[in-house]
């Protein structure tokens, strides 16, 4: 225990605090003491919140759910990078061992016009859902379970679709994009369905509807900085944006 204790760190946090959507916000400073290197980033925030609650103060509001990197709920920009900048890692899977004793950490919410702040580090990401509602589905009659392999999908296509389907919809791509664009998110959904036989039937309508929904919901235009791919905790490739561009061109002539 003593060896463990000697490893603990003291971290200075600068956290964005904002009481509500229209309230003014500002960075406030907190000391996180006795931080274990084995703690996750969110566990460190939990302990800071426990101290705030004990002191009768409002705890820091932040989004989280599964805490195992698959739900896409965590949404903090940590030291200027969504999810903290560790390759293919969500904020919940980021461990405090990546920081040093005495470090200062800046924690801010996703910032984009399409993501209004609800409170502190929590933003409203329904705009992403509205993009998917516009076309991120296949229309089919559901009935009995179809025979296995009734629809053949070549393995490379299945792999491609699975790579696109890795997107957890966290919105880090939007938060990282200098233009507040949701092209990586939108393209992952478009590409995943466009390559599969079930999705091909509606490919043209889908790409147009989803691109329109992206625009209507206040997201910016893609200018190929590729910040999105670099910040994506699932490593979604910008090759899917190229695929969206191809699908869109095909749709233009339909």
């Amino acid at each position, binding site marked *: 225990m003593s060896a463990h204790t000697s490893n603990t760190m003291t971290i200075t946090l600068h956290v964005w605090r904002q009481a509500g959507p229209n309230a003014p916000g500002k960075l406030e400073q907190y000391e996180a003491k006795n931080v274990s290197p084995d703690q996750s980033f969110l566990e460190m925030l939990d302990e800071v919140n426990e101290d705030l609650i004990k002191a009768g103060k409002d705890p820091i509001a932040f989004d989280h759910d599964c805490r195992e990197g698959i739900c896409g709920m965590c949404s903090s920009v940590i030291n200027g990078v969504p999810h903290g900048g560790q390759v293919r890692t969500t904020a919940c899977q980021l461990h405090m061992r990546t920081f040093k004793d005495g470090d200062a950490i800046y924690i*801010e919410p996703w910032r984009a016009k399409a993501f209004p702040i609800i409170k502190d580090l929590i933003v409203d990401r329904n705009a992403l859902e509205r993009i998917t509602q516009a076309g991120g589905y296949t229309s089919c009659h559901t009935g009995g379970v179809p025979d296995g392999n009734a629809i053949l999908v070549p393995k490379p296509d299945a792999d491609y679709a699975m790579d696109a389907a890795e997107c957890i919809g966290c919105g880090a791509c939007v938060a990282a994009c200098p233009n507040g664009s949701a092209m990586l998110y939108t393209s992952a959904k478009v590409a995943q369905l466009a390559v599969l036989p079930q999705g091909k039937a509606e490919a043209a309508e889908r790409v147009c509807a989803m691109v329109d929904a992206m625009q209507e919901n206040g997201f910016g235009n893609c*200018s190929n900085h590729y910040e999105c791919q670099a910040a994506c905790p699932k490593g979604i490739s910008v090759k899917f944006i190229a695929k969206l561009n191809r699908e869109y061109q095909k749709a233009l002539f339909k």
Partner: protein
Amino acid sequence: MRIFNSTVGRKLLMSISGQLLIIFVLIHLAGNSTIYFGWINAYAEHLHSMPPVVWVFRAIMLAIVGTHICYGVLLTLENKAANPTNYAVKRQLKASFASENMIWTGLLLAAFIVYHLLQFTAKMTPDVAWTSNQAVVDVFKMVVTSFSNAGIVVVYALAMVMLFLHLSHGIPSFLQTMGWNNDKTIPVYGTAGKVISAFLMLAYISIPATILVGLLKL
């Protein structure tokens, strides 16, 4: 029309107009290079012998440049509006100085094009005032005289640095927007963009530079 209104459609217009401008940059460089072989007067005379072709070409170029600038400004304003608040701390992972400053390198290039046209096409700048009483302008003499002025050469060199920055992002970017990209080509295009734009910059600068140092003279 979807292509003129949608985010991806307008990006396609930016990409296609950009590609046409790159083709012009290549053709213009080939034309300029005739100066090294002593053919520039013959080349200029050949162009001026077909006024309808020249004027149709100029009108098309104006339309292409206009499209590229209008949508460039419009998209940039929309992008600023979509990302109105700055992070207190922001660490870029992939975006470069070139990619983040396309609007500024582009507008500086537009300003340079205006200057360049006023100088060698309209002949309205002081350094080419002497050509006003010439029946036929000696293009070689005009270019060599103007580029003997170090200040003018510096302006041209800086403009070509803008061209390098603009195209080092513009080349990989137009390929991505056209959809001609995949995991294997992404890094290749990035490198090719830098190499091709560096070549264009150096090739264009070589003309005023060789004149300034006296390798090419009257």
